[in-house]
């Protein structure tokens, strides 16, 4: 069981590095905005295509 005296500090070192990574991220403002990223990840970009022609001007009727 004496392996515990080595294994536990190693595990704690892992935990400490995770805490440091968290501190770095939150101090840098990465966790300030929790609303936009979940929306942003839904935007799968379509494969690039040639720009469309817009709307033909002949069809342009202004109601005013």
């Amino acid at each position: 069981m004496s392996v515990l005296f080595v294994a536990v500090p190693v595990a704690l070192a892992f935990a400490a590095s995770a805490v440091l990574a968290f501190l770095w991220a939150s101090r840098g403002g990465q966790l300030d905005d929790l609303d936009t990223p979940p929306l942003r990840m839904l935007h799968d970009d379509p494969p690039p295509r040639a720009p469309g022609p817009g709307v033909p001007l002949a069809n342009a009727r202004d109601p005013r």
Partner: protein
Amino acid sequence: MLHVEHLEPGSTPPPAPARVCAQPTACTHCGQPVPPASRDPAGGASFCCSGCRIVYGMLREHALDGYYSYRDREPGNAPPALATGRDYSEFDDPRFLDLYAGSRGDHRTLELLLEGVHCAACVWLVEKLPELVPGVTSCRLDYARRTALVSFRAGAPGPGAGAASGATTTQASAIARTLDRLGYPPHPHREGARAAIARREERDLLTRLGVAGASAGNSMLFALALYSGGFADMDAEQTRYFRLLSALVALPAVTWSAAIFYRGALGALRARRPHMDLPLSLGIVLGVLWGTFNLLRGAGEVYFDSLSTLVFVLLAARLVQVRQQARAELAAGSAHALTPHAARQLDAAGAVTVVPAESIPHGARVEVLAGDTFPVDGEVIVGASQADTSWLSGESEPQRIEVGSEVFAGTTNLMSRVVVSAERSGAETRAARLWREVERAAQRRAPIATVAERASAYFLIGVLLLAVIAFLAWLPAGAGRAIEVAVALLVVTCPCGLALATPLTVSAALGQAARAGLLIKGGAFIEALSKPALIVFDKTGTLTEGRLSLVRWVGDTSLGPQIKALEQASSHPLARALVRALSHVPAGTATQVEQHLGIGVRGIVDGRRVTVGAVASATAPLPEWADTALRGIERDGQSPVVVCVDGVLRAVLAVGDPIRPDAARVLARLRQSGNRLVLLSGDRTAVVEHVVRQLARQSGVRELFETAGGELGPEAKLAFVEAARARGERVFMVGDGVNDAAALAAASVGVAVHGGAEASLQAAGVFATRPGVEPLLELLRGSRRALGVIHMNLALSLAYNVAAASLCLAGAITPLWAAVIMPLSSLTVVSHSYRRRMFGVEK
């Protein structure tokens, strides 16, 4: 022929001709109905106006029409805001850029507040800005705050024009114009000092939470080993090792993370006010001290796992509440700016430069076009017009301004171009001074002690008493045993119901209220709103629509086409109100139209000579029916319009600010539930009296208002509210204008109604995003329900604590029991808070 018709508020005037209308086609861009003439017969893209067509074309051209598929994924999305079409040239002024856009090399970063951001598709489109405007290097949108951070290479537009590297550059105004055309009118944005502090605090809280989480999790692992080691055989050396480790790991949580509670507790002690942090801190500190003592002597319980978990859970609850509250603040703060950012300054030669409004010096000449907002306080030196001062003074009718008249920043020029000699700009304007008054009133406001804070005082006293009793009861068994039981009691009886359940209930309530269109800026307001109070109403824009409409039509009602034909050409506010009311009537053909300032419009319509205008435009003597009608209009404080055909008076119309259709019903309901009502208005007394009479008639309650007063300025409203509060009354203020802002801030709860000025939104504790006063009922009902849930949670947690305390007194409590009971009680109150519907319930 004589026909008298009284128009009820909110009804549509003269019967509209039946419209032959098939299923309306929705505009491909904005989703509004498309007039039949501009529908695409082939069933392709159709547009309601040329603006939407241009944006659609622009998106197609850049292969960005994926916007539409993202938008259509979420049904019920609101249409995009309308483009303003401004040219934003003040954005290129060096003074503007230095104020709002930080620079690094030739890169500048501009933060813009965007109107009209409402769905995932908006995020997508706005972040495609680099593809739409060459020279923009990145654009990130913060969806919750509605702000976009745009980085761009500053310089003249076009490739390589400004930068030495030959890279494409662009101007801030080009960026603003593009966003505007897409339907997101931008406003320059600087994070205010208050917002910056709030953001730092939130970040700090999150960091502490993360550290406490790591501490609690790891400490619990060791505790688990110790508990199971208690059943199996664990040698003494390992037990000591694990106890030491659990203490070390928990140390950051109970010292650094929990420092927030210690600070709160010290503050509460100094202010001699009960606060939840007090019993919490006491429990944590005593637990830590006793745990350390036991650790050193190598016997008894160490509580570090329970303590660090407690800190973690409490911080989590606090963060959830802070975020929810910050969101309500943000949504209210992102309304339009009080005064415009740009001003058109004239130089000696009369040439116009668009400059930031704050930089206008005293005595400078500023041009203000019709429809624009005055950027400075000053005196009119050229031109005559009418100004809408409703948000500043509460007067519902436009004020005449001419050479020598004083005008104020933030009011609107309605009719024609005027030139103003600037007297005060920026922080010196009346609007800015009023705003400072609002902030002072908000600071003076006495804080509301919440039920949780009051309960925590009793809780603290109760637990301390119990601990003393436990100590005395166990003294015969030995002093060491007695101390152990007393400390176990202090640690186990955690005020979870107060410290955890209340913030979570409040944040759940704030979230539900926000979805129901009510933004509440804090839990204390919910509690105040749950009891009857003295409710003070503003008139213009709150109980009334806040804009001029046709309210009465006496005489020949078939004259619609003739009136519309003449008034279409006029930009007079009364004319605009008439044209709006006659939108369903076809216009006649008018020739030889002449406008006379102060009299009206005259012309030949369908071969007959028609005049529409003030009473002076009709030839005296007036027939008796017209005299009666005019007297009534005068009494009610409305504006009369007379219509003559071939010199004969045919109809008398009244234009006024109609009462909101839901006002009378809501007020009657408020009276029923025990509130007292007061009406304070800046408008003329005659108008106020008329509104009071109308509301009494519609609601069927004779004495609807306890007091109703007119011609009251912002200072008088503030004084009334402060006096009532000084008498110890609970005062709710409901209003919309800047003239209400100080009173909103001073009231126990200020409620800003939809469409209000920014100042009132920021000053108020609650902001309704739905129009009308109906949301007020929902607000009071929901608050009552939320307080019920809070009371229920307090009772639940009291029951748990009584159970835990009795076990403790019986000496049966072990850390294992404590570890089971505490999360169980927390879980019950948390799920209870989140599952109950408080706001947004059908009646």
